[in-house]
């Protein structure tokens, strides 16, 4: 007699739990915090780590996608830094604060090149005209199990004119995405779909940068960026190395 009742209770408890779970994980992001709140939170983090620095000015909040925002800033010590925010559990979280605006690749989902964002922040007074970003995959060839193989070298570049954009967060150029995608798509998919692993094909690509001054000569890293004072928080980023001209083909 009582059994239907119990079934009903269990069903409703289960559906409420499911709803809460969905709400918790997939709720749409709220309004991104305003400048005052951003300053507050960033300075809280700096205080927490006992850094002497203080964020003076937010340059811009750059929406990478609905749940990811990059915020370049200027500090009291004259750092041109970068902060990264994600819509986490129910609030906008500051996940990383970097005193130094060196080019970084924010890989939101490693297996999806459309989710990669290139970020940088260069002090405008520095005499560099252009920032070049590179995607490189080394040439690979040989004989394995009696079969010859050859993978062409990939080397593509993207030019950023610093006078127009001294800071930014931009998606990869479509051609880069195309090349990455074509390589990921070739990866074996025999693994269980339950485990999402990083594509090994995507890992073969390197992302690098260099900078060119008004005289056409390359500008060294030391001039372009102050040595990093601090780097707080998690980093799901790929740091981009500076490339030597001789490495380029």
């Amino acid at each position, binding site marked *: 007699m009582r059994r239907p009742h119990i079934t009903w209770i269990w069903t409703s408890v289960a559906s409420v739990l499911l709803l809460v779970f969905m709400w918790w994980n997939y709720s749409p992001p709220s309004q991104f915090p305003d400048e005052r709140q951003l300053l507050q939170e960033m300075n809280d983090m700096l205080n927490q780590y006992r850094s002497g620095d203080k964020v003076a000015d937010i340059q811009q909040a750059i929406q990478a996608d609905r749940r990811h925002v990059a915020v370049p800033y200027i500090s009291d010590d004259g750092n041109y830094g970068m902060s990264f925010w994600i819509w986490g559990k129910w609030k906008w979280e500051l996940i990383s604060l970097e005193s130094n605006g060196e080019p970084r690749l924010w890989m939101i989902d490693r297996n999806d090149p459309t989710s990669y964002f290139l970020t940088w922040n260069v002090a405008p007074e520095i005499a560099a005209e252009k920032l070049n970003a590179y995607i490189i995959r080394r040439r690979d060839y040989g004989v394995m199990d009696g079969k010859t193989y*050859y993978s062409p070298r990939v080397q593509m570049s993207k030019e950023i004119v610093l006078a127009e954009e001294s800071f930014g967060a931009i998606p990869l150029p479509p051609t880069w995405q195309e*090349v990455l995608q074509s390589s990921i*798509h070739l990866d*074996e998919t025999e693994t*269980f779909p339950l485990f999402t692993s990083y594509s090994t094909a995507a890992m073969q690509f390197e992302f690098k940068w260099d900078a060119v001054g008004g005289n056409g000569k390359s500008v060294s890293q030391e001039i372009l960026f102050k040595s990093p004072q601090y780097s707080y928080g998690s980093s799901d980023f790929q740091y981009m190395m500076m490339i030597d001209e001789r490495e380029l083909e």
Partner: protein
Amino acid sequence: MIIRFIRGVNEINEYGPFDFLSNLLTVLAWGAIFYLSYRIYRKNPEQQVGWKAFLVLLIGISSFSITWVMANTVIQIAVLPLGVWILYFILKRKEGRWERYRKFAWLGFGANYIFLLSILVASSIGHFVYPTDHAETFVSDVKEASILSIHPTGNAKAVLNMRVLNSEIQSLKQSQIFDESWYEDTLYQEKAKYERFPYLLKDAKPKWGSGHRSTIFVEKDGKGLLIQTPTEHLYFRSTQSFVEGGDEK
């Protein structure tokens, strides 16, 4: 070696082009299994419950199997009937129950060999219908295809001559990626900062139903195709160039 439960399911999950033959043979294999189980069932329908017999069959499929790759085909040979053992311990607790369902459990284990047979048949027919020594298997429909320069050696303005590629595709000759002097050549190329395959061929479709995944590169002179599949790298030459505007640079 892996343990796989309910095989035949995860093949369907695999993304990539539609593999007509293995899908067809998987359907045929399941058809054969259903037919056999129906024949067992019909002998004495009073003693068995249909859905229970079906469940026993499914559990019976679980097995410990050896996996290896033979002629580019993933083959799994069931060795230990894990599902059958589990069923035995569950079913024998009631008098006569194991005896009634035994045949379905063993049919489930036997199903592994029906799947194995279907894979072997699919792959051997596949070798004839979709030969890997024909470029046409990988590049059959080029209506939406285009090329993309991936290295400074390539000319950014170069475009694909679809008409030539379309007419040449059937007569492309497979050849060696490297002849005797390949190693020296490649070292020389590296010094000369030259890439032999500076274009990516994108959006070319493989022959219908072949299920072949590949990444394709085009040679600098526009006369060669490097086709990378998950298991090998193939190289084809044509007599005519199918790249326009690639020679100026």
